């Protein structure tokens, strides 16, 4: 079965919490140990230093590693740090970036239409996914404003978040959950039985989390082989194929 991780990172963190990959090759070694060949990746500098530096490094350092697919972080349009929208999307195309992420707390902005309206409208048109850490109030507000935006919620709380994210799954067709923290006993199978497997994306949350837990949870969930393949890689491949740059 093919595995495509939607939630992994490399780079030297300012505060290491455990094992990490300082280089793309180290990350590929970690992924390869678990049988994973492809991953969407961010750079540690994106969070710890600046979005501009992280975006530059993740693009340049993954260039020679076709299994690693760079994610860029967005910043408010009003400060001009992203350049114009035309420049931004041209740069995404040049650097093979098909997925964006946002860190509203770390980068200190409001994730809403006032700050990002033209960008999010264009992302809806181009089917560009936005990765976000869980904040259910923020995600609910964002999707209410941009219901056609493709949003992937990462790193949900393992202490029980189904009551938070299932209403969003029911309301918004382009809302997805990564599996890095979906260690709820029977959670994947229960979710898939109700909603089908198409809204779950395999994610490891490496380096914060141990990579193998999410893999064995998906591989051995009480669902069909086709459903496992969709979660492991197929759903993410479909999302990426829909992106128009």
């Amino acid at each position, binding site marked *: 079965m093919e595995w495509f991780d939607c939630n992994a990172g490399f780079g030297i963190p300012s505060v290491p919490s455990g094992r990490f990959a300082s280089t793309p090759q180290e990350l590929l070694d970690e992924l390869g140990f678990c049988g994973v060949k492809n991953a969407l990746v961010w750079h540690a500098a994106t969070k710890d230093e600046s979005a501009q530096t992280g975006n530059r490094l993740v693009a340049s350092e993954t260039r020679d590693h076709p299994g690693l697919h760079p994610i860029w972080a967005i910043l408010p349009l009003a400060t001009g740090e992203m350049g114009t929208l035309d420049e931004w999307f041209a740069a995404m195309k040049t650097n093979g970036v098909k997925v964006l992420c946002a860190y509203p707390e770390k980068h200190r902005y409001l994730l809403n239409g006032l700050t990002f309206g033209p960008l999010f409208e264009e992302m809806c048109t181009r089917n560009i996914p936005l990765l976000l850490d869980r904040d259910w109030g923020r995600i609910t507000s964002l999707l209410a404003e941009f219901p056609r935006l493709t949003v992937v919620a990462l790193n949900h709380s393992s202490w029980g978040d189904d009551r938070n994210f299932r209403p969003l799954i029911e309301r918004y067709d382009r809302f997805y959950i990564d599996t890095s923290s979906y*260690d709820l*006993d*029977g959670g994947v199978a229960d979710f898939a039985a109700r909603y089908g497997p198409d809204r779950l994306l395999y994610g490891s949350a490496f380096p914060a*989390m141990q990579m*193998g837990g*999410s893999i064995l949870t998906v591989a051995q969930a*009480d669902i069909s082989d086709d459903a496992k393949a969709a979660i492991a890689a197929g759903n993410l491949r479909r999302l990426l194929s829909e992106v128009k740059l």
Partner: protein
Amino acid sequence: MKNESAIAREFLAHGRSESCPIIDMHGHYGTFSGIYFPNPHADRMLLSMDRAGVAAIVCSSHAGLCEQERGNAEMAQVVREHPGRFYGYRVINPNYPEAARREVDRYPQDPGFIGFKFHPSGHSYPITGEHYAPALAYANEHKLIVLSHTWGDSRYDNPELVAEVAAKYPQAIIIMGHSGYGAWDKTFAIAREHDNIHLDLCAAYRVNGVITRMVNEVGSHRIVFGTDQPWFGPHHCAGAVCFSRITDEDRHNIFHRNAEKLMAPFRVS
């Protein structure tokens, strides 16, 4: 896949290992306030256990964390109905010391119980407090297991407090639930210092690199498998063990050997 572990490959292919069963030393039972459980009760817990090769689980009931006498009676009923698959911890709620004392007195009545469950953080009462003392003294006298929730930054069950208890009750077997989550250095140090402390992987398994550190700095002979099931599925914890940089001998110790030794006096055939 570059992981050459035979156990990991078996789990990945079949979901379980014929040669390496699992004994889960940290389970719960029943519904709980802040979470949706697909599998809160025995029938569905057993399905998950069977899929992962979990031979037995030791549980405390969620009801017992709130109302110990009612909850422990519920757990005893489950243990009676599923001998050899479900074992029990008798929950002690120190906020009701008279009821807690009665639960200690009742301990011999229920075969299939292997000790006590403390949740000092949940009960906002320190593990070193006097209301836990009767249960600890009883566990010390009878060499029982005490599974206590422990968390690194808790004022009620941090590693330093656990060390005090381990020193005062050296015959009691203390399992540190969640291994003092976050305070790894302190936890590993007190585990090296006190032979009666064992480390539970529940939730700790998620943190990248912790299992390998635990094995290297304390030893796999002191680590037990735990899931909090029905909170977390056994495959997540098993996957973390399978894909850590440890040996298959370590995996045998963690998955079942250590638990078999600890539970030998209590096994129900």
